[in-house]
């Protein structure tokens, strides 16, 4: 599709003597294409690349907004300060735990949802509508809804789940580390599973029914068909979903801000960066954190792509 206009153009241009490396028509097309993408590229770069360079620059200064005259070039000591601080590592571990647990749970639940949506023959509109509500809802609202659900005096979780040995009427979910992390992860999982299941549904829809039928005729059980036929054939969809959700989960901020404000050591890397810059006005140190966060996300993306050999170009229909 992308080359169709060029191939249409060549016979006309190629009728004359010799073949120039680029005909007038294709160089005009080249210019038009670049003109059309220019506004979008400029806007995207303006707000990301430029501030990121700014962050790189600021990260080498001791610079606090409350004492602007004390601005001093200190090379990489901000990075030393950050990397030598146990809080940074604790928050990184929290973030990684949240990322791994939520993505793993979402993958399982999301796949189950996708199977139901794939099979269902009735009420497709109703199911699509309800699955899109968590996707569309404001994360802050989701966080409030779950915070209130887990609330000690106004929530329903304690009364509905009091049959579990570790839940009673006065379980304080936000009083200690793991229960608070659990509540945060529940909100995150609730809100983002639908997105995961829609991506997986699109993957499921591309598997030919004949292949599954053939496996059934050959006597494969449901479980074998799932592991030997269905899952391997939707690898691209699974990996795209994991890549996007993992990087998204790594940036978790909203749920933590609303539910605990970082209390009970539930702070994430994003939250730490935000707190340094906005609450403490530590622009130098905060910028160092920003750069580190950016590098971590790059590294994660690279790792996921390499580990699972995600061919994004292929998955996106670009050849």
């Amino acid at each position: 599709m992308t080359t169709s206009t060029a191939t249409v153009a060549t016979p006309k241009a190629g009728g004359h003597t010799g073949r120039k490396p680029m005909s007038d028509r294709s160089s005009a097309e080249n210019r038009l294409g670049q003109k059309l993408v220019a506004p979008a590229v400029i806007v995207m770069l303006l707000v990301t690349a430029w501030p990121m360079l700014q962050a790189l620059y600021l990260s080498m200064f001791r610079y606090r907004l409350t004492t602007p005259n004390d601005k001093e070039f200190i090379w990489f000591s901000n990075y030393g300060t950050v990397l030598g601080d146990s809080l940074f590592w604790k928050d990184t571990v929290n973030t990684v735990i949240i990322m791994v647990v939520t993505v793993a749970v979402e993958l399982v639940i999301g796949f189950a949802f996708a199977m139901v949506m794939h099979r269902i023959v009735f009420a497709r509109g109703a199911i699509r509508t309800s699955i899109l509500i968590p996707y569309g809802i404001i994360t802050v609202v989701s966080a409030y809804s779950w915070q209130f659900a887990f609330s000690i005096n106004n929530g329903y979780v304690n009364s509905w789940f009091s049959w579990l040995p570790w839940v009673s009427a006065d379980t304080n979910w936000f009083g200690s580390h793991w229960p608070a992390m659990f509540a945060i992860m529940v909100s995150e999982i609730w809100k983002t599973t639908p997105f995961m299941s829609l991506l997986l549904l699109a993957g499921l829809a591309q598997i030919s029914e004949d292949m599954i039928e053939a496996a059934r005729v050959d006597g494969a059980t449901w479980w074998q068909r799932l592991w030997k036929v269905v899952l391997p054939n939707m690898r691209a969809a699974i990996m795209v979903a994991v890549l996007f959700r993992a990087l998204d989960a790594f940036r978790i901020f909203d749920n933590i801000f609303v539910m605990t404000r970082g209390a009970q050591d539930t702070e994430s890397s994003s939250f730490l960066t935000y707190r340094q810059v906005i609450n403490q006005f530590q622009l130098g140190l905060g910028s160092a954190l920003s750069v580190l966060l950016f590098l971590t996300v790059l590294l994660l993306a690279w790792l996921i792509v390499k580990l699972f050999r995600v061919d994004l170009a292929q998955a996106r229909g670009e050849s």
Partner: protein
Amino acid sequence: MNERRNKIATWVGFIIILVWCLLPVVWIMSLSFKGPGETAAGSPHFLPQHWTIQNYRDVLGFGSVTPGQENTNNDFLAALRNSFGIAAISTFLSVIFATLAAYAIARLDFRGKRFVLSLALAIAMFPVVALVGPLFDLWRTLHLFNTWPGLIIPYMSFTLPLAIWTLSAFFREIPWEMEQAAQVDGATSWQAFRKVIVPLAAPGVFTAAILTFFFAWNEFVLALSLTSTTASRTVPAQLSFFVGPDPFNPPYGLLATASVVVTIPIIIIVLLFQRKIVAGLTSGAVKG
């Protein structure tokens, strides 16, 4: 036998999905109808014991507002205005830019196409919070701090990737030969574009607009960091500051009511356009 078991499993799955998706929404709706007396005393009941719409009066500012809550609704209504304005303007601009770019990507051959696509992908994964510091500094110098453009500009850059991916996937599916066919049949180029291409492209553009609007409506980190007053603070940021005098006893009913009010537009959009949204979310992501 097997057929029947499958059917039952699908039904059970259907009900689980409905409960999963709707329970937290029903819960905040239920909370929004509980009076302040009921939540202050603590109530383990899911549904209100005494239904009241006083919270809606206090949040939206109609009828008899509880004394002392006048500022609540002023701030909230200002935040609603900001959210609608900022989300609408960034959606409009972002979709225009994305349409131009996606048309070029789907239809034209030009140098740097891969670069644009990779850049869009990189920005889709960008940690927004990393920009808070430098943007905070830059926006204060440029007097963009706490203004609408101060949020609209970054919202455009962060929604462009999704819009470009979605739209270029849509545009690739359009049978562009039809434009030439119309011209052969005697239509002018403008007529061919207007009568043939626009109707084919419109659903894609519209879907991209919905997804962009959702992002801008939902965005929290930048709204929190780059605003300071009701002049530009959007709903998510306003909600998070809406704690009331006692941090250990938040105004459950008011927060739930405000949450319900800001969820209603989402529910309406989803009800009307669910098919398009699903197509848009998945078209860019998984293509064989």
